[in-house]
C-alpha cells in the first residue's frame, strides 16, 4: 500500500465533491436543520414553559369563574397570572368567544370530602396558542387544589407513597434531555451515515461509469483505490461532526469533551464506511447496494441502541460530561471491530483486484 496513491485518490474525490458543489449542499443542509431545530425548540419551549418568554410572564389572563365558590377560587385570585371574574356561565362563554376572557371555569356543588370526585369544567378556545399557555398555568393551580382535596380525603387511602420532598417549582431543564439525549447524538452521528452512503456512491460510480479500467491501468492498485475512497469519506466525518458541534454551541448549547466526541464519531464511522465499502464491492451497482446497506444500517443501529453503553449512548454521556472509564472500553471495542473489518475489506479488495487484472 502506497500512501501517495491513497492521497491521490482521496484528493481526486475531494475535487469531485467541490466541483459539483455537493459540499455546498451539505453545508446548506446543516444550516437548515440547525435553524429548524432551534425553531422547534423555541416553539415548544414557549408552548410548554411560557414563563421562559418574558413577554408572556408579565401578562395577567382573565378567567371567568362560574358555579360554586371553592378553595380553587382563592388559589386563582392569589395567583399573579390571572384576573378572576365571578360570572354566569352563558355570558362568560360568550365573552370567551369574543376573546375577552382567556378561559372559563365552572365548579359544581360537590363537597371537598364527598364520596364523588369534584368535576370541574374548563372552557378554552380551540386551535389557539393562548389556550395552550393558559392550560399550562392553570395546571399548577389545579394540582395544588388536587393536593388539598387528597389530604382532606387522605383517611380513605389504604397506602401512602414514600414521601419525597421536591424543591419548589422552577423553570428550565425542560428540553435538556431532548437536546443532549436525542438531538446531539443523532446530529453528530449523521455525518457517519452520510459518509458511508457516500463511499457506496464513489465505488459503484467507477463500475457504472466504466472508469475502473482506466484507473487500475495506472500504478494504483485496486485495493489502494478502495482505501483512498474510504479515506476521503473518513476525513469528511470529523469536519462535518465538528461543524454540528460548532453550530450547536453557537446556539448556546454547551457541549463538553468535544475532542473525545469527535474521536468516538470518527472511529465509529469507520465501521460504517467499511460496511458500505464491502456492500458496494459486492454489488457494484448503486440501487442494490444502497438498498441493502440502508436496511442493514437500520438493523445495526437498532441492535446497537439496544445494548447498554453503546457508542451513541457514549456520545450523550460525553456531551453532558458523565462518561467515565467505560468510554475507553467502548473505544477499544470499536477499534477491534474496525480492525477485523479492515482485514476483511483488504482481502476482498485484493481478491477483486486480482480478478480484474487477470480478467
Amino acid at each position, binding site marked *: 500500500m502506497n500512501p501517495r496513491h491513497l492521497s491521490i485518490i482521496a484528493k481526486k474525490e475531494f475535487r469531485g465533491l467541490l466541483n459539483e458543489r*455537493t459540499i455546498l449542499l451539505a453545508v446548506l443542509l446543516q444550516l437548515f436543520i440547525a435553524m429548524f431545530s432551534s425553531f422547534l425548540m423555541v416553539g415548544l419551549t414557549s408552548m410548554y414553559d411560557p414563563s421562559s418568554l418574558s413577554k408572556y410572564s408579565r401578562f395577567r389572563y382573565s378567567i371567568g369563574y362560574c358555579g360554586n365558590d371553592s378553595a380553587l377560587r382563592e388559589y386563582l385570585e392569589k395567583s399573579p397570572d390571572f384576573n378572576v371574574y365571578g360570572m354566569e356561565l352563558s355570558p362568560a362563554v360568550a365573552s370567551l368567544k369574543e376573546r375577552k376572557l382567556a378561559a372559563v371555569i365552572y365548579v359544581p356543588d360537590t363537597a371537598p370530602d364527598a364520596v364523588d370526585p369534584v368535576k370541574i369544567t374548563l372552557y378554552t378556545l380551540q386551535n389557539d396558542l393562548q389556550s395552550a399557555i393558559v392550560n399550562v398555568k392553570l395546571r399548577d393551580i389545579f394540582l395544588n387544589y388536587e393536593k388539598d382535596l387528597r389530604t382532606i380525603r387522605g383517611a380513605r387511602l389504604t397506602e401512602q407513597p414514600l414521601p419525597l420532598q421536591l*424543591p419548589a417549582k422552577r423553570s428550565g431543564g425542560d428540553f435538556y*434531555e431532548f437536546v443532549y439525549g436525542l438531538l446531539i447524538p443523532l446530529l453528530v452521528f449523521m455525518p457517519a451515515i452520510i459518509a458511508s452512503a457516500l463511499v457506496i456512491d464513489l465505488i459503484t460510480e467507477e463500475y457504472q*461509469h466504466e472508469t475502473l479500467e482506466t484507473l487500475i491501468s495506472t500504478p494504483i492498485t485496486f485495493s489502494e483505490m478502495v482505501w483512498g475512497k474510504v479515506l476521503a469519506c473518513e476525513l469528511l466525518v470529523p469536519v462535518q461532526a465538528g461543524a454540528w458541534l460548532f453550530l450547536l454551541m453557537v446556539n448556546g448549547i454547551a457541549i463538553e469533551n468535544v475532542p473525545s466526541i469527535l474521536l468516538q464519531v470518527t472511529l465509529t464511522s469507520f465501521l460504517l464506511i467499511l460496511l458500505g465499502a464491502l456492500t458496494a464491492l459486492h454489488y457494484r451497482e448503486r*440501487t442494490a447496494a444502497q438498498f441493502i446497506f440502508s436496511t442493514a444500517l437500520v438493523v445495526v443501529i437498532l441492535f446497537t441502541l439496544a445494548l447498554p453503553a453503546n457508542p451513541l449512548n457514549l456520545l450523550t454521556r460525553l456531551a453532558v460530561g458523565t462518561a467515565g472509564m467505560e468510554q475507553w472500553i467502548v473505544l477499544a471495542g470499536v477499534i477491534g471491530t474496525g480492525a477485523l473489518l479492515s482485514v476483511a475489506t483488504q482481502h476482498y479488495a485484493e481478491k477483486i483486484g486480482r480478478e480484474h487484472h487477470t480478467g
Partner: protein
Amino acid sequence: MGAIADITTIARWEVKRTVTQMSRATLPLAIVLFILLILVTGFAAKSGMHLQDGMYEAGVDDPAIARLLASDNRFSVYQLDSEKLMQNRQAFDIVVIQGTVYGSGSERGRSALKTVERDYAKYTNRVFNRQDDLYAAYPLWIDLESVKSELDFLSTQSGQYISGRPRSVAPVPEGEVLTIPTPSPTLAISKEELRAELTRSEAANSQITRYTEMLSSSDSALGTFKTPSQLSPPLPFDSIILIFVFIFPLYFTSQFFMMSIMNERIERKGEVLLSTPVKAGSIITGKALPYLLGMLAISATLTVYLRASLLIMLPLIPVIFFFLANALIIGMVSRSFKELSFISIFFSTVATSYLFFPSIFANVHVISLISPLTLIILTLQGTAYTAGDYLFSTSLFWITSAVLFFVAVTNFKDERLFSESSLIPRILGFIEESMSKKHPFFSTFLLNGFAIPFVFMVQLMCLVLFFNLPMPYSLILLLVFAAGIEELVKSVGIFVLSAQDHTFLTAKNLVFACAATAIGFLTGEKLLLLITLSQITESVFGSILFLSLGVLWLPLLLHFAGVFIVACALKFGGRKWFVPGIFAATVIHCLYNLYFILGWLR
C-alpha cells in the same frame, strides 16, 4: 390509444427490469436482513433503548429511594450515608437526603430534578391506581370543553388577546349570548373504566413516551376527562409518529424512481428508448406509473393495517405526486451518484421539515394547515376538516408537481439528459428548454405565473421558520426574505433569455420582458390567492407575503420596477451585476412593503 399502449409497455419493462435485477442480486440478502430486523426489533423491545443511560448522577441515603431512582436507566445512583452526601453534594446532579431532594444549580441538575419529579409522579400514580377508593386518590377531574372563536388568526398569531378593560369589572359580551347548559357534576365514566385507563397510561413507558409525557396527554379513551396532571396542550405525538410511518416508504420508493431515471442517463443507456417514436411524456408516465401504484398500495395497506379511515389517502396523494415529481427532476439534473445522494438528502430533509414541523402545532394553531399532514392527523383524531382546508394545504403540492412534471417532459431529450454541465447551468438549461423561443414574452409571462406556487412554498417555509422569533424580528426577517425571493424568481426568466441570446436585451425587448414578468407574477399571485384565500392571507404575515388584494396597479408597478432594475443591471453591467441588481431590487421591494405596513399600522 397509442399513448396508453406505450405507457403500459414501458411500465411493464420498468417492473420487469427492477424485479429481475433486484431478485437475482439482492433478494436472498434482503430476506435475511428482514428476518434479522424482526429479531433485532424483538431484542430492542425487550432490552429497551439505551441512548440516555447514565445521563445524571444521583446520591441517595435511603435504599428504598435508591431503588426507585435506579429503576430509571438515566440515573447512575450512588448510595452513601447522609454526612458524606452532604460533603460531596457538588459531585452529584441531585442528592436525596432524608427524603428531601436537592438539585445542583446547573442545567443538568435542573433537568435531573424534572426527571425525578416525573419518575416520582409516575410512582405515586402507581400507588394511587391500586387504591380501592379511586376518588380519594384522584379527587379532582377536569372536563375540557373547547370553544370556537370567531376572531381567528389575526389575534392568535402570537398568543395575545384583545384587552384594555379596567381590571375590576367583568367583561360583557357584545354579541349574542347563547345559553350554555349547566355541566353535570358527575363523571360520565365508571370508576373501573377510569382505573383501567389510568393503569394503561401508567404502563406506557418507552423512549418515545418519555418525550410525549412531558409534551402531551396521550389520547386516551377518557375523552375530555383529565386529572390535573394530565392537563397540557394536546400535542398529537402518537399521530405524528404515525406520519413518519407513512412518509418513510414514500421517500424510499421515490429513491428507486430517482435511480431508475439516473440509470437511463448513465453511459447513454436511455438513448435507445429516446430513439423510438414513443413520446417523452409517455416514457416518463410509464416509468413513474409502477412507483405511483406502489406508493399508493403501500399507503393503502398501511392505512388498512392501522385500521384508520381511508380518507387519509386524500391528503397523501398530492404528497405522493410531489415526491415523484421531485424524484424525477433530481434524477434528471444530478451528474453523479454522490450528487444524487446529496440532492436527495437535501430535498427529503427540506420536504420532511415542511411537512412535519407545522403539523406539530396541529391542535394549537391554524398555521399547521400549511402541511397536508395536519389533515392526516386531524383524520386520525376524528376531527373533520373542510374542503377549503384541503384546498389550502394541498393546492401548492398539486400545482408544483404538475409544473415539475411539465418541465421534466419538455427536457426529456438527448442534449439535456446527457449534457455534462454542472448543476446550476443545468437547471437554467431546463428552464430555457421549457420556454418557447418563438414567443419569449408569452413564455416569460407563463414562467412567472407558474413560479408563484414555488415562491409561496418557500415563503410559507420562511413563515414557519420565523414564526417563533420575537415579533419585530420575525416581521423584519420575513419582509427581507419574502422580497428577496420574489425578486430572485422574477429575474430568472430574463436571466435565461439574455444568457441564451446576448443580443436579446434591446431597450424595447427589455421593457416588454419586464412587463410580461410583472403581469405573469401578479396574475399567478392573484389566481393562487383565489384558491387559498383563507386565514393566512389576512394576518400581518399575510399582508407582507401577498400584499394588497384591492389595488392592482401598485403591486404591478412594484413588480415591474423590481425586475426592471435587475434587467438593467444585466444589460449594462453583464452577469457580474446580476446579484447586486437583485440586492437593489430587494431593498426597493422592502421599502415599498414597509411603507404599506407602516401605513397599515397607522
